[in-house]
């Protein structure tokens, strides 16, 4: 268990290092640089208070800068250059983007990503809303919530295995062990189908996996929002004669519009980055390519950093509107 030992040492080093850093740096500021005594006491306290936040922030800012901010810039640079023999790279302008746009696999990935972008957030939010509404009104609601929420703990690869079993295909005549084919035959379908190789439709079968995982998330958030609606509003609507459906669609849903938007955008970000499900179930074959998998293909199978980085930049551009919206919301809230 060499790796386990290494892990233990890393935890100790990491934790010990952090603790030592925070203690020592504070000590340094308080006793050596700006001691809160002597002739410049007031000035020193003021200066220490000016420096201290940055002591607390420094490790986090350093890691964020190296692991998130720098890569964004470096990826931008890589997308505008090509690798040359040796270790260098050469500026090539938009050549990588031009090449990428000319590839049919990229256009297929864009088309599929847009499909995912429309279908998955809509379906997961709708199912989540339905589940929230149903489970809020029954006695075993919390158990039901747990069970619908459970897929969230399952890895995308694990979910891929689970759904491959559902979509399993055996030639006609054999017992169908895939639930979907068994259901189709049970309902009078003529023959079993290999669902994951049916062009265009297979995209929807892959999307079902993510909808299955994300519905629980939507349900939890929306259920909390539904319970947050003031009782008086609902009572007033009932007294005015609103039926259960009217109450739901005309009173409750409009009141939680903001939360629905948050759920929708959160799932959208997940969808844009979707990789594991496609990678594990079809690896982009049979017309199921998506951007993140296309990028992985380019970076690590074809070794083409230029085009790979260009597709990563496209991914970043697609996320940017949500990023801006989130930041705007956060700033409005802080005021």
């Amino acid at each position, binding site marked *: 268990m060499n790796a386990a030992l290494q892990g233990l040492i890393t935890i100790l080093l990491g934790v010990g290092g952090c603790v030592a850093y925070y203690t020592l740096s504070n000590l340094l500021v308080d006793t050596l640089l700006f001691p809160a005594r002597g002739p410049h006491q007031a000035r020193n306290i003021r200066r220490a208070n000016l420096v201290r936040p940055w002591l607390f922030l420094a490790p986090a800012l350093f890691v964020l800068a190296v692991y998130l901010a720098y*890569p964004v810039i470096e990826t931008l640079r890589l997308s505008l250059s090509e690798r040359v023999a040796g270790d260098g790279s050469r500026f090539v302008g938009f050549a990588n983007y031009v090449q990428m746009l000319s590839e049919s696999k990229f256009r297929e990935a864009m088309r599929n990503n847009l499909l995912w972008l429309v279908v998955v957030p809509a379906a997961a939010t709708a199912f989540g809303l339905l589940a929230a509404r*149903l489970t809020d009104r029954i006695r075993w609601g919390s158990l039901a919530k747990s069970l619908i929420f459970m897929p969230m*703990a399952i890895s995308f690869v694990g979910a*891929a295995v689970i759904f491959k079993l559902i979509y399993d295909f055996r030639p006609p005549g054999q017992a169908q062990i*895939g639930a979907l084919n068994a259901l189709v035959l049970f309902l009078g379908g003529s023959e079993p189908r290999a669902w994951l190789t049916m062009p265009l439709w297979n995209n929807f079968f892959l999307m079902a996996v993510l909808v299955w995982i994300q519905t629980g998330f939507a349900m939890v958030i929306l259920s909390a929002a539904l319970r947050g609606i003031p009782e008086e509003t609902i009572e007033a609507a009932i007294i005015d004669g609103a039926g259960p459906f009217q109450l739901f669609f005309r009173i409750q849903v409009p009141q939680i519009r903001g939360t629905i938007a948050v759920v929708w955008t959160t799932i959208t970000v997940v969808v844009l980055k979707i990789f594991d499900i496609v990678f594990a179930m079809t690896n982009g074959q049979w017309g199921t390519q998506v951007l993140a998998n296309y990028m992985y293909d380019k970076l690590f199978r074809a070794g083409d950093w230029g085009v790979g980085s260009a597709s990563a930049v496209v991914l970043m551009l697609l996320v940017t509107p949500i990023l801006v919206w989130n930041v705007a919301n956060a700033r409005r809230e802080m005021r």
Partner: protein
Amino acid sequence: MPEIAGRRSALGWALNLSALALVLLWTFPTAGLLVSSFRTADQIAGSGWWRAMVPADRNLILRAAPPAAQREHEGLFVLEGNLFDEADAPRAAISAFGVSSRAIDAHRPGTTAELRNGERIEVAANGDYRHSSAQAMQGRRGQRVFVTATIAPSFTLDNYRHVLLDPHNVEGMSRAFFNTLTVTIPATIIPILVAAFAAYALAWMAFPGRALLVAAIVGLLVVPLQLALIPLLKLHNDLGIGKGYVGVWLAHTGFGLPLAIYLLRNYMVGLPREIIENARVDGASELQIFVRIVLPLSFPALASFAIFQFLWTWNDLLVALVFLIDSSGETTVMTKNLLELLGTRGGNWEILATSAFVSIALPLLVFFSLQRYLVRGLLAGSVKGG
């Protein structure tokens, strides 16, 4: 008002039934995996997992004893015994049998089937047979009998034994399990520590640029980690870290940090102002306030982030592929192992289902025991944004 009461209870029924349908639909896929992991390969191929609980009709090919065992009895050459015992198979109830592959269910149990050259075989429902012939029987192997048998439901732990405990199984999950654990624990603890200090500064210390920093962190929350792969791999190679645990720990720390800071800061901002101001007035240093007051009070937020980060690092595939797993394959994690099995063992559902269940068992356990904190964290992270 009986009508209204009646309508209400009908609505209640509809509500309960629709909720039940939804819950069943959502648990059905995972149940399939769990049930399949306790079935043998033959059982899985023979019938869908949803039939595992009911007795199943199976077609078996069994053999009578070889002619070498025949006895002569009143002018007949006879072989007697039980078909299931001859094959060392568990006994089952036979509903039909046949002696030709073209008519495998031609005869009812208890009747006699005619074979070539005047031989006869009688098969009873419990598998007892009597194979007789007027002349001495020839050949090395016993008579083939096709039976349709009703097999009682049965489950096995052999798959788990094979996947977890078999030392000769190179595709086993035990090493991957420990590797995943090795990735997960430091990758969960280190970001919490780093983030907690930063979150405290962003929540309770006044300094210029604070609002801008918070906004930047909200922005970083959605940056796709795909952008970081090549630049960081290059960086790790230049620094001499290469591919390995250190690299994957650092990467997970970096990618988890924005959410950690965001969640913890949101929680810390909500702590009562008086407690912290009083401590400051009493002369406590910022470090003391943070360690003695804010950190213990923030336990729920720390727990919810820890669960998020644990689930995310445990379930991750991409970061491990890029930063951890080298060509030796020594450091493979469970998601990668599953992926390989999907490629090489695509049809062996007993192995796939068992391996998959091994990989999701711990996250499910964590999920069900600590769900409270997970929900609280989700609400803190999302609802506020509205």
